[in-house]
């Protein structure tokens, strides 16, 4: 027995009979192969999970928020998989959706959370004065950047995208993205310089 309404997404069409209380009704149902779609989704998630998590973490600055954001991104991918061309590079779409999901999450952040982050920026006297401390300071500096500058510099300098790719993902012009990146780098350099003493 197969329900005509079990999953969806394929092109096989069958006639179905629904019998209820002595009445037989005939209809046409469209049935889909879910197995192939599910496998494709899992493969995409395995390939690009680090990309999404890493980008979300640098945009949000919180591990748990980044994990929440990544889940939302992949659920959106699952819902939209049927509309995505197989074989097409999904990374621009993933970056764009990650930025948007993080933007939505940030809008719900309260001032209390921002103050918490600032408290965590205090230099750690125990930390080795080396790359670890530099990383900590740069991470703190990233959290302080305006959202758009942070997105631009994360995509450019952490994800390694070109300015043009960043502009396409953010829906901005290249000139705007260049200004945002320059501003972000100068601010980060200033922040790290001040905190390093």
């Amino acid at each position, binding site marked *: 027995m197969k329900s005509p309404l079990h999953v969806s997404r394929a092109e096989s069409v069958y006639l179905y009979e629904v019998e209820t209380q002595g009445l037989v009704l005939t209809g046409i*149902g469209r049935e889909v192969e879910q197995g192939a779609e599910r496998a494709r989704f899992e493969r995409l998630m395995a390939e690009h999970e680090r990309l999404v998590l890493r980008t979300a973490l640098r945009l949000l600055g919180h591990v748990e928020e*980044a994990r929440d954001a990544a889940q939302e991104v992949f659920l959106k991918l699952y819902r939209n998989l049927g509309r995505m061309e197989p074989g097409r590079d999904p990374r621009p779409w993933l970056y764009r959706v990650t930025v948007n999901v993080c933007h939505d999450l940030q809008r719900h952040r309260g001032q209390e959370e921002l103050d918490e982050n600032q408290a965590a920026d205090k230099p750690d006297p125990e930390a080795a004065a080396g790359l670890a401390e530099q990383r900590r300071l740069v991470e703190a500096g990233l959290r302080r950047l305006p959202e758009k500058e942070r997105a631009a510099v994360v995509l450019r300098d952490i994800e390694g995208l070109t300015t043009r790719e960043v502009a396409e993902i953010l829906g901005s012009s290249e000139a705007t993205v260049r200004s945002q990146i320059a501003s972000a780098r100068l601010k980060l350099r200033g922040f790290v310089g001040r905190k390093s003493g």
Partner: protein
Amino acid sequence: MSCGRWEKLIALEETGTPELRAHLAACLECQRLAEEIAATRQVLGSLRDPAIDSVRPLVLARIDGMERRRVWWPAWAAAAAVVVAIAFYIRPALQVETMPLPVMQIAKLAPRVAVPPATTVRKVRKPRTPALNRRVQEVKIQTGDPNVLLIWVMD
């Protein structure tokens, strides 16, 4: 030319112009800026591999939950659609070629229809092309899932 004018180009590491190269050769402040920008970019690049646990199990669990819910409610919506289709069929004056019910109506109708537990569904055969001289009435109902379209064909 003052240093301020070169700041943006130095921040973008676009130091290839002869004029800027000459300025950098002469200005210690801008040299230091260029070095610090390069160092900051290097640290940014090292942030590519944070320690963060996979979300795959959570995502797959949520999808499984979504799929389980998706199997159940369309059955109710289908039963509601059957009732509606029968109602139109037995109303002699009404000519309905297609009846695209809004998605929200389907969701509202579904819970009110009691489907008897004895309902059985059988897959009969693949569709045949309707004969051209037969009058076929077709009712199409788009469900909340864009991939699920109910088509009821009545002779």
